[in-house]
């Protein structure tokens, strides 16, 4: 009724008719309450009147006998708990816990009832005198008289631990009872649970798992061991969820992790025939995933896996890229790299939770070993070349993209991207000029990818090549539209006008074309220069192709698809039956190395030998003589005669490309130095080197020696000067 009183101050007094005179009042009232408490403990409460007991307790407190009531309660309860203690001690074997549990339930119920009838004391007397409230008092008395009684304390602990041990070795125990007892310990306060159970429990568990892991590791392989460890871990987690304090989960899992995993980590990873390396080799996704999940729980676990994986990856990768066997077939070489990458990609994806740090390890390993082989850029370009020439025929667009994307990942690992560009340009030029490219879309898509990866500069020339191809087509159409009529039925000419600089042209000596052809070429030249003033045309006869119609001895007719050089040679045989090497060389003026190669493919390749040579041998000698092979047959009407080209570059060619790459790097390094110095004005030597290396990283790894040379050259040309005071400093001269 406190909510709506009239606002007047009242003095509260006790009921007036109860102004006690009877000196025995307190004793008498207490006797009633004491009797009631006995009855409650004896399960005899049904006859008691709550109101009467409450009123008595109320009056005792009101009449300042609270102290008597409280101490009486303590001694009565203690008396009962000691009786209970004796009956629990007397319980035999397995009944011990059950008796304890039953008595605990009884005590709780009695305590509840006592608290209810003594509620008034709980409400007023206890807060005023700072005593322990009834409920807590009951728990404390239980703790001191039962749990901490000498005969019960150790027996309780050993019983609990023994039950858990029995459960660990596979027996079924009464989990409900366990839960009740543990709950009791928790109710008695966190310190009781921790001191009387959790701490010894953790110690015993550590011993158990230490022994068990020792046993397992001696007899199991890594996969089995991990399975066992995982099962143990799950068992403990399940145990906690069934009958322990949830807060214990982290503690007990730590124990299992430490004893079963952390202490044996290295031994597990390096286990012979079944360790991490074997799992990687055999693609054991499940085992690897288990290892990842378990090791993740312990400090340094994942880094251990990662380190082993990285070193394994680097070793196998190193073997792969330096294996001379592999180097014979660039396409196979790159395919191997791709397979290896796919394999580890899948492992990281399936077993390692797509962990970023593992992906980084994978990337850095690839970067490490791909660049161990200086020919990697060339091979990757060759791989693309192969794919775009034939590999992707009949493959759906999505698959093409997939292959290209994979190639791009390898490309990203390259340090010498400019070398790749060089080769790629060469290969692309060959593809475009010979019309061998399978899909224009695929070509363009790759260029777009390269562009996003390395910027406009990287691909501008490549794109220029595509533009040239398109313009040439238009030019040819216009040329034939203008002059088609006067040309008649003779040979037709297709010219591809290539912009100097965009294409990897080799300075080549033009050969002497057959008269008919040169006339045609002249016509085109005058037409082209007529429409485009201020340009110069040179013929790149080393890059062209020709289709010839030939009739052989017995009248077999074939269409021969040959290179321009081969065409020049073959046309000579229209007027002669026998020509010596020297004669051919003189008339055509084809450079001797090219001529040898072209003759080799005309005379020495089985099934395509339209020429015959004397003496019969594999190689072309300066003294050889050549005849038309009248017996030439082929089941096809069209015969393609390839030039014997080494797909891979030969040693001198490699040197040459290398040299050109080095040449091309010089201006780039200089430009980078100038850019940096322009903004910094003054900088010391080491810093310049770092900055330049960083700027050029996306294209190649600059050599410090080379940077130094470039700086010297810039000093000579008055772009930079050394500081007069401090020789290490360089100054930019605007």
């Amino acid at each position, binding site marked *: 009724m406190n909510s709506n009183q009239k606002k007047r101050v009242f003095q509260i007094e006790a009921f007036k008719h109860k102004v006690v005179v009877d000196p025995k009042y307190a004793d008498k009232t207490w006797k009633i309450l004491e009797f009631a408490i006995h009855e409650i403990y004896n399960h005899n409460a049904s*006859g008691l*009147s709550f109101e009467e007991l409450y009123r008595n307790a109320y009056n005792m407190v009101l009449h300042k006998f609270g102290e008597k009531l409280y101490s009486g309660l303590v001694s009565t309860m203690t008396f009962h708990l000691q009786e209970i203690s004796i009956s629990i001690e007397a319980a035999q074997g397995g009944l011990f816990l059950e008796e304890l549990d039953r008595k605990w339930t009884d005590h709780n119920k009695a305590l509840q009832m006592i608290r209810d009838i003594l509620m008034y004391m709980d409400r007023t007397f206890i807060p005023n005198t700072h005593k322990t409230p009834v409920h807590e008092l009951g728990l404390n008395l239980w703790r001191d008289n039962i749990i901490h009684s000498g005969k019960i304390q150790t027996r309780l602990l050993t019983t609990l631990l023994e039950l858990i041990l029995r459960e660990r070795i596979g027996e079924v125990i009464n989990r409900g009872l366990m839960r009740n007892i543990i709950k009791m310990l928790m109710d008695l306060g966190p310190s009781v649970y921790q001191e009387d159970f959790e701490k010894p429990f953790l110690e015993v568990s550590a011993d158990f798992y230490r022994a068990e892991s020792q046993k397992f590791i001696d007899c199991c392989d890594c996969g089995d061991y991990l399975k066992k460890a995982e099962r143990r871990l799950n068992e403990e987690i399940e145990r906690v969820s069934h009958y322990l304090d949830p807060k214990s989960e982290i503690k007990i899992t730590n124990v299992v992790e430490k004893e079963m995993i952390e202490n044996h980590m290295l031994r597990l990873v390096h286990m012979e025939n079944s360790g991490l390396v074997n799992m990687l080799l055999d693609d054991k996704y499940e085992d690897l995933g288990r290892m990842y999940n378990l090791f993740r729980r312990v400090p340094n676990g994942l880094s251990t896996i990662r380190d082993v994986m990285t070193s394994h990856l680097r070793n196998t990768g190193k073997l792969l890229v330096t294996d001379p066997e592999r180097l014979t077939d660039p396409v196979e070489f790159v395919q191997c790299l791709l397979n290896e990458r796919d394999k580890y990609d899948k492992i990281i994806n399936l077993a390692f939770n797509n962990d970023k740090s593992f992906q980084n390890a994978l990337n850095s390993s690839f970067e490490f070993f791909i660049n161990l082989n200086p020919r990697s850029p060339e091979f990757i370009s060759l791989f693309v070349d192969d794919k775009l020439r034939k590999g992707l025929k009949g493959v759906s667009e999505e698959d093409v993209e997939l292959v290209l994307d994979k190639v791009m990942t390898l490309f990203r690992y390259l340090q010498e991207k400019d070398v790749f560009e060089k080769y790629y340009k060469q290969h692309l030029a060959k593809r475009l000029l010979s019309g061998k490219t399978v899909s224009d879309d695929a070509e363009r898509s790759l260029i777009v990818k390269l562009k996003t990866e390395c910027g406009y500069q990287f691909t501008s020339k490549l794109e220029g090549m595509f533009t040239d191809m398109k313009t040439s087509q238009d030019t040819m159409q216009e040329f034939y539209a203008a002059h088609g009529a006067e040309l008649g039925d003779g040979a037709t000419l297709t010219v591809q006008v290539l912009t100097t600089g965009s294409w990897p042209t080799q300075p080549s000596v033009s050969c002497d074309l057959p008269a008919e052809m040169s006339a045609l070429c002249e016509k085109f030249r005058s037409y082209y220069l007529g429409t485009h003033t201020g340009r110069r045309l040179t013929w790149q006869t080393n890059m062209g192709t020709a289709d010839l119609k030939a009739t052989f001895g017995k009248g077999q007719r074939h269409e021969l698809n040959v290179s321009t050089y081969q065409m020049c040679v073959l046309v000579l045989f229209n007027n002669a039956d026998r020509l010596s090497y020297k004669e051919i060389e003189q008339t055509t003026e084809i450079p001797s190395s090219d001529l040898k190669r072209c003759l080799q493919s005309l005379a020495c390749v089985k099934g395509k030998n339209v020429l015959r040579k004397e003496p019969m041998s594999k190689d072309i000698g300066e003294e050889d003589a050549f005849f038309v092979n009248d017996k030439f047959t082929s089941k096809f009407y069209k015969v393609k005669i390839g030039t014997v080209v080494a797909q891979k570059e030969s040693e001198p060619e490699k040197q040459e490309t290398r040299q050109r790459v080095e040449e091309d790097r010089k201006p780039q390094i200089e430009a980078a130095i100038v850019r940096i110095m322009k903004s910094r004005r003054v900088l010391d030597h080491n810093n310049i080197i770092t900055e330049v290396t960083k700027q050029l990283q996306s294209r190649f790894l600059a050599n410090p020696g080379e940077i130094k040379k470039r700086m010297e050259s810039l000093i000579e040309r008055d772009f930079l000067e050394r500081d007069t005071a401090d020789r290490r400093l360089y100054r930019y001269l605007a």
Partner: protein
Amino acid sequence: MKKEDTVKLISAEGFEFVIDKKAAMVSQTIRNMLTSPGSFAETEHGEVTFPEISTVILEKICQYFYWSLQYASGKETEFHIEPELTLELMMAANYLHT
């Protein structure tokens, strides 16, 4: 009204008030009497005797129980108390923990 949902409160003079358990439980003391785990006589018979509370006061108390339920459900009205009852009523309130 079912018997289990009601409780009988008996005054010092023997007057019986039968009210809803829900209303009676506005008093913390009565609530404990009716819900304590052991089966006390009050729980078994569904009646509580108050030898120290007079009929007038107990009636007022019962009125207050119902008023309090209404007040708690948001109906804010005045609860009138005759001045001469105030003292005894407050002592009963202390006893009933209301």
